[in-house]
């Protein structure tokens, strides 16, 4: 597989982003109209300010779309190459899983255990470390943050089964 192969062109990325801006601006305008975007007796209504904000978003995004269509040669440059996207996903996917592990409706692990698992995964998968290196680093970081937040700053963070077993909640 060619790692340099572009996944998306600059033009495509520009168009998608500007398209999202148009949709977002339109949504803002639509909701502002619902609230009343005109002038009442005592001044502007709740939707007046946001309505024009939305309008500005749509107008500038439309200009960006036109510019993107006329990018020419520059528009064909890769927005992201296959190898790059792979690296980004390699970070993003575990981060999403990490956030889900911290707290979910079914079985939350709490932030400390999740952090230890998260760091371990990174070191194992990306760094190819041995478990003798992974265990002390990941557990050390988790314990450090536990002491810092729960004991020192007294800022409770989400906790899971292990903390409960140890009598913290």
């Amino acid at each position, binding site marked *: 597989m060619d790692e340099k192969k572009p996944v998306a062109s600059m033009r495509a990325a520009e168009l998608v982003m500007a398209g999202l801006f148009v949709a977002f601006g339109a949504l803002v305008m639509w909701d502002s109209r619902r609230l009343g975007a005109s002038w009442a007796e005592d001044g*502007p209504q709740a939707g007046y300010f946001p309505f024009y904000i939305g309008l500005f978003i749509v107008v500038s995004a439309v200009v960006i779309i036109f510019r993107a269509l006329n990018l020419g040669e520059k528009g064909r440059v890769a927005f992201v190459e296959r190898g790059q996207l792979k690296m980004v996903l390699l970070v993003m996917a575990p981060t999403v899983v990490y956030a889900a592990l911290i707290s979910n409706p079914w079985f939350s692990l709490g932030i400390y255990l999740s952090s230890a698992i998260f760091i371990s995964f990174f070191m194992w998968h990306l760094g190819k470390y041995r478990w003798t290196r992974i265990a002390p680093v990941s557990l050390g970081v988790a314990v450090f943050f536990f002491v810092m937040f729960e004991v020192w700053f007294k800022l409770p963070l989400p906790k899971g089964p292990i903390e409960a077993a140890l009598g913290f909640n």
Partner: protein
Amino acid sequence: MQEIQSLMGGFAVAMTWFNLALMLAGVTLGVLIGVLPGLGGANGVAILLPLTFTMSQQPGGATSAIILLSCIYWGALFGGAITSILFNIPGEPWSVATTFDGYPLAQKGQAGAALTSAFTSSFIGALVAVILITFISPIIARFALRFGPPEFFSVYLLTFSAFVGMSKGTPFKTIAAMMAGFALAAVGIDTVTGQLRLTFGFTELLKGFDFLIAVIGLFGIGEILLTIEEGLEFRGTKAKLNLRVVLDTWKELPKYWKTSIRSSAVGCMMGIVPGGATPASFMAYGLAKKMSRDGEEFGTGKIEGVVAPETAAHAAGTSALLPMLTLGVPGSPTAAVLLGGLLIWGLQPGPLLFVEKPDFVWGLIASMYLGNIVGLIVVLTCVPLFASILRIPFAIIAPVILVICAIGAYTVHNSIFDVWLMIVFGILGYVFKKLDYPMAPLVLALVLGDRAEDAFRQSMLGPEGSLTVFFANPLVGTITGAALFLLFWPLISRALAIVRGRNGRGG
């Protein structure tokens, strides 16, 4: 000189052992934050802000809290130079110009000289800006006491127009990003009518978007994604900094006094304007290159090429606090986060702060002097330590930074929803950076959105009740006029270029 007297009072506030210890801790943390990828001044301060909640409740605690956070900022400003010079990786956008001559110097084996001159010039730039703050800010604050809602709205307009006028790429991307910030700021309960805006029935959206989450995601996660895209390796030169090198460099530095003065002036002027630090560093570098006797050799490793951008960037970064303190209008994302801190600690930023909380204001200003001295000592003595942190493999440092960001996002409101939001903002930050959308306007709009809208609506409530109120008197008219001029500067400059081009062809 009433200012000197107030400043002495400030030193009395700032010079307790507790506050000095906080300065040391803040600066050290700040340098660390400035050195690490994905953690910069803005999101570093944002992550640590929740930790100051309890501190600020004690008497005099708000002053200690701002001292801690502002010292993190000074540290981060210093730290940016370390990565630029040793690793050719600018830690902050305004350190980009430092890499031009700093990295070649390091490759030539003169990393010590480059670092010493960078730190010393940073210190001088900051010092000039702090002196400026000491003497100018009371005057501006006194002047601004007369400001009503129309004046404040015109100042906000000026702030945001400056972003559009000074945007590097297309102004439309600046406008789109900025307006997105305003729209996100509008989400939640409308303060005037109590109506729900843009919540679409989601209870999580009732309290609106917190800009701290946006800062952590955009600048933190986004930066990590950009770094990882380039691969996992950091390659840098070794740093050795001993007293001998420091003293030798200090002997050489006075030669560049003209460059220092020029760069400080550029930095102070640009710093007051939002988003000014980065252009200031480039401008100062360009000016030095043009005016220096050996300007031709810039880019091959000249000390002067390090002095110019570092002085300007620090002067700008420091003077960005001037409008934040006096008008409640931050000049940079980090200043915006500090402003957010004031609001959280129950202080109302703006001209009244000088009247109501002189201890706080002058304690902060005095701490700027002390913090920068502490900073200079810390960076000069601990460079090898900080550089060795960058040698920790990315596979370890990246997940730890992500964990820190997640904890930081969670502690803002103790809500897991914010962690998810942070991830979304992170992806947005990555795409923004790749497509050249600026992030600072979005963050500033998110911070100031409600205040700008309130100022606008209050202006409209008056007897006039129309847009003419923004031209009702010379003061507000001048500010509004300047704002409109800056807003349309991209158009004006293009028109000028066309006219000039025609003349050139004709003559």
